[in-house]
């Protein structure tokens, strides 16, 4: 629950002399991802395309969150609320101008501003106190939408006007393209960002604030920036979710969403984009699989509850078996982990 101080062991099994060119440039990952997604959307049935799109939207937010929490050590339990901010901005802009790119920009602007405000407060706070503040942010969504129900539509939320997909493209395929477009651009930018000086600053602040300060890093500014970057990702994800659902309501951004996002990045592997991807996949697949398993039990009484138990058990078991997250599991060698 405190901020993450110890460096994650996941990247350190190789000698510490960094050879940045050992990994392919992030652009190749992005291109490969884009090709893969487009290919997949042609073979998958519509519902799977929709799920794929949902994974993309989740990936957008988990990628930003893992940079904030994994690389900079700031915990946020309020990213669900930031997503709601993005989703509502998108909805309002879309209903006013019916112009997708413009609406997405609107979502990005408002969440960036929200990110600045929360980030400024967050930079002063540590560990559970930061968790407490962001938790309060997460639960404020329904209250805000009810207070401004003329514009935000209270519990009912808003439905969103959308242009039909271009040409003869099926809706679900279009959704998958857009969501993954957003996800891949986001993760590419994040990957570029954390490769450079900003990434080093992030890690330096996480590992030892005093040392970072001595080394000339502006700690507060780094923390606020990290928060803003990850808030913008959450805003884009929120817009993508609003686009997927063609509607937005406070019930879609409950506290459990914020908690599940944190769960996803930790289970996936904290501080790594591959981990964020694993986490996003799990957020979509695990409840669905647990639900199916629950249905197989054949008992109506058990159904939903059994799914909960399975879901929970998987979380606990994975966390105990692979403390570094799924992305840290190596297939060839067993990782040597030191406390």
């Amino acid at each position, binding site marked *: 629950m405190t901020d993450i101080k110890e460096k994650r062991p996941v990247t350190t099994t190789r000698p510490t002399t960094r050879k940045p060119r050992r990994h392919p440039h992030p652009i190749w990952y992005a291109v490969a991802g884009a090709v893969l997604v487009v290919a997949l959307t042609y073979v998958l049935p519509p519902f799977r395309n929709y799920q794929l799109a949902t994974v993309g939207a989740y990936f957008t937010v988990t990628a930003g969150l893992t940079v904030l929490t994994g690389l900079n050590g700031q915990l946020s339990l309020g990213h669900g609320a930031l997503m709601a901010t993005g989703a509502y901005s998108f909805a309002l802009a879309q209903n006013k101008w019916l112009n997708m790119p413009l609406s997405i920009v609107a979502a990005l602007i408002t969440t960036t501003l929200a990110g600045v405000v929360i980030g400024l407060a967050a930079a002063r706070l*540590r*560990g559970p*106190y930061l968790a407490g503040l962001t938790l309060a942010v997460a639960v*404020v969504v329904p209250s805000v939408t009810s207070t401004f129900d003329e514009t935000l539509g209270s519990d009912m939320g808003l439905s969103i006007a959308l242009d039909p997909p271009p040409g003869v493209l099926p809706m679900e395929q279009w959704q998958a393209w857009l969501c993954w477009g957003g996800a891949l651009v986001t993760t590419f930018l994040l990957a570029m960002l954390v490769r450079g000086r900003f990434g080093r600053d992030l890690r330096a602040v996480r590992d030892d604030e005093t040392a970072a300060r001595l080394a000339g890093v502006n700690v507060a500014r780094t923390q606020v920036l990290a928060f803003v970057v990850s808030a913008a990702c959450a805003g884009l994800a929120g817009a993508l979710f609003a686009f997927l659902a063609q509607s937005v309501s406070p019930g879609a951004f409950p506290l459990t969403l914020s908690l599940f996002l944190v769960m996803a990045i930790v289970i996936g592997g904290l501080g790594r984009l591959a981990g964020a991807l694993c986490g996003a996949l799990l957020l979509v697949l695990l409840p669905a699989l647990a639900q199916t398993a629950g249905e197989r039990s054949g008992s109506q009484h058990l159904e939903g509850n059994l799914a909960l138990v399975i879901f*929970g058990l998987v979380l606990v078991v994975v966390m105990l078996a692979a403390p570094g997250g799924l992305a840290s599991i190596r297939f060839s060698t067993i990782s040597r982990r030191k406390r």
Partner: protein
Amino acid sequence: MDRFIYLTFDGLSRGAVYAAFALALVLIWRAARIVNFAQGAMAVAAVYVAYSVTEKTGSYWLGFAAALVFGLLLGIAVEKAVMRFVDHSSPLNGVVVALGLVLVVQGVLGIVYGNEFRPVETPFARDAFQIGGIAVLSRYDVFVFAAVGAVVVALTVLFTRTSVGLRMRAAAFAPDVSRLLGVPVGGMLTLGWALAAAVGSLAGMLVVPTELGLNPNAMDVLFVSAFTAAVVGGLDSPIGAVTGGLVVGLLLSYVSGYLGATVAPMAVLALLVVVLLGRPGGLFSSSKARLA
């Protein structure tokens, strides 16, 4: 003025149960440096045990005792069977395991008892005494205050007057050094979990009868309020937890009464911002909390 007095007492009686649950969070924080997100679900499980025992025996107090004992045992079980094996190199691992436990506990309770709301009896009447036509406190509220007060006193004595309390804090703050000095760190952790779970169960027993009824999610909302209370007061301080609980209770009551229930969560957020910007470690933090 009548209205103000009424809202004050309403807020205090709500605040007392927030305080009780916040104390459980403080206890586990002091003992293990972790915020136990499963605390609410564990407490609900204990209240279900009390419910079953009371139903079988017809005695509220047997159920009450059973809940506390079950809480203790559940705390021990969770620590020994699960939390002990969590890799604490990242504190978030413990949080995720706790969230997983929440789902497991709620699912199991749903399977065993169903998702229906069940009424929980109170040992004392909830009809409030009237003073000059204003409803103030009920016997039950007085019982809640007494129970919370007893827990505060017991915890304060434990942590400031006994060597066990000192060892617990030492084990949490500096496990390695403590181990060298002969403190049974593992045992202290287990003890901390057991006590925290028992206090959490007590809080559950106190709060569930005043709300919508017993169901697997009965403590979800309370957890948020109590966590807020603990953060406002400072997670290291039992007195802070009580103060935080009462402040949050009063704030919710005044805001709901004067401005409307809808804006209450925003008021809580505002309170947190104001308090934490002034004192980043909560009201009762020591000055070092800033860098903890």
